[in-house]
């Protein structure tokens, strides 16, 4: 297969479209961010980096996204397992519904989950009697993020499970291992790379998520204010420098996560290959 620019036509045209489109819609705006960031004075950066309200918004965003990704790592894996390995009535419907969070506008998800978990809602009312509040607390943020990021984990794991033959589990059983041991020692190692991908995608998406969260969070400074909302607040106050600085730290953080996961995956692949 010696595909060269000469044998197949259209290189100039398709490459021209690709680069100019990306240049206009992605690189140009990103350059503006870099330019604005380069304009920031040290004082501005320090004032943002030490602003207690901003720092607490980072804590809320990171904490809730991590927790939501962890919850999905457990329930998403379970859901994927059940969908692949068992046949039962309603399976196809659930399989289709798993992608609902991708198809449903986040604002709709936000008001629906808020109405469900508010103290007069279907789920919120019984919980309120137990003294548990979900809507307008960090728990509410986690619920919204679990909803929005669920498909990432399920859809990362499902294809791997489909390829994984039950024979290995059977072999484990003949050797006398119990169900949980088989899952931990036989299935989980096979799933680890996909689980890691799903987890990090869910985490990254949760970090940036806005639409579903702002309705359920209550948005109280220092308690339930997320980092993306901090950017919006600063923009509305026309403090563009501060908004840029907040965004910059967020970007660096999510790139760091992506990079880390990439490295982990390369190591995992090297292990599997060697």
């Amino acid at each position, binding site marked *: *297969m010696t*595909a*060269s620019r000469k044998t*197949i036509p*259209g*290189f100039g045209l*398709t490459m021209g*479209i*690709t680069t100019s489109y*990306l240049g206009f*819609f*992605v690189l140009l*705006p*990103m350059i*503006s*961010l870099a330019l604005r960031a380069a304009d920031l004075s040290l004082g501005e950066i320090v004032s943002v980096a030490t602003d207690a309200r901003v720092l607490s918004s980072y804590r809320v965003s990171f904490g809730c996204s991590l927790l939501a990704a962890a919850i999905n790592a457990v*329930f998403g894996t379970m*859901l994927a397992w059940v969908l692949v*390995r*068992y*046949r*039962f009535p*309603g399976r196809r419907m*659930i399989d*289709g519904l*798993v*992608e*609902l969070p991708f*198809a*449903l*506008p*986040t*604002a*709709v*998800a936000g*008001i*629906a989950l808020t*109405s*469900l978990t508010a103290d007069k*809602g*279907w*789920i919120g009312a019984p919980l309120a009697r137990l003294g548990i509040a979900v809507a307008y607390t960090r728990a509410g943020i986690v619920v919204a993020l*679990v*909803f929005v990021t*669920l498909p990432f984990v399920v859809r990362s794991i499902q*294809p791997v499970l489909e*390829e994984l*033959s*039950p*024979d290995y589990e059977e072999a484990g059983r003949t050797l006398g291992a119990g169900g949980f041991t088989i899952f931990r020692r036989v299935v989980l190692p096979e799933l680890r790379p996909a689980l890691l991908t799903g987890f990090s995608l869910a985490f990254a998406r949760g970090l*940036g998520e*806005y639409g579903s969260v702002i*309705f359920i969070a209550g948005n109280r400074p220092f308690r339930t204010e997320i980092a993306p909302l901090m*950017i919006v607040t600063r*923009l509305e106050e026309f403090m*563009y420098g501060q*908004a840029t600085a907040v965004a910059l730290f*967020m*970007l660096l953080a*999510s790139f760091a996560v992506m990079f880390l996961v990439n490295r982990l995956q390369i190591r995992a692949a090297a292990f599997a290959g060697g």
Partner: protein
Amino acid sequence: MGAGTRGASGGAWRPNPVARTVLIVLSLAFAFLMLVMPLLVVVSQAFGAGWEAFWRAVSDSFTVKAAKLTAITTVTAVAANTAFGLAAAWALTRYRYRGQGLLTTVIDLPFAISPIIAGLIFILTYGRLGWAYPFLEAHGLKIVFAVPGLVMATVFVTIPFVARELIPVLAARGTDEEQAAVLMGAGFLRTFALVTLPHVKWALVYSVILCAARAMGEFGAVSVVSGHLRGKTNTLPLHIEILYNEHHYREAFAVSAILVIASVLVLAARSVVETVSRREVR
């Protein structure tokens, strides 16, 4: 479906009945709680006051305007990203050159960036304090707080959808058929339309559906660049936010019900495409 499915329906693998029941019940409960109940609550709130109240909310002139604007931004963004996706998939899989990895990373970038940051970078470019603003003003153009800004923000957020779906499909096919077509004298457009396109048509349809769903529902990026001018730069999701914040809950849920129906249709279409394409492969 792979080997696992076959193993589950027959053959040596017998699931532990207790574990099976517990896991299925837990999964059904989780799915009902997280996926079904949000849909039910929207429907119940939207129709709770009867058809008439629902119809009044949905046929309100601001709702209709928001729906039209959503249609415009969605169609434009999807059309642009489809054209781009086809070109990018071709350019990235039919040739070998340096920098391919970098190009793929740039295509993926919008997925790694918060929609709020996506909105922010357009404000920093075209907003009143942006470096491109003097040029826009001199030519009487308006992007931020106007429809072009909404479209551009939507395009940014949905750039990866089509390209990402097509690239692996085209890469897996290799270039032999295209080379043969070219040797027999077909030009670029003929080769593309008659040889390449038929192979990727289902992946293309699939990705366009998902792209449209995301474009229609985009909230964060659009919210930042819109300025929330009712009747002018309000898309349906933004309209829902305004209604909700003004405590017009019934109306907010009525408008949401339209989007719920749209997204259920998207899921149905997605699963039809998947079934049809799978049958064709066989």
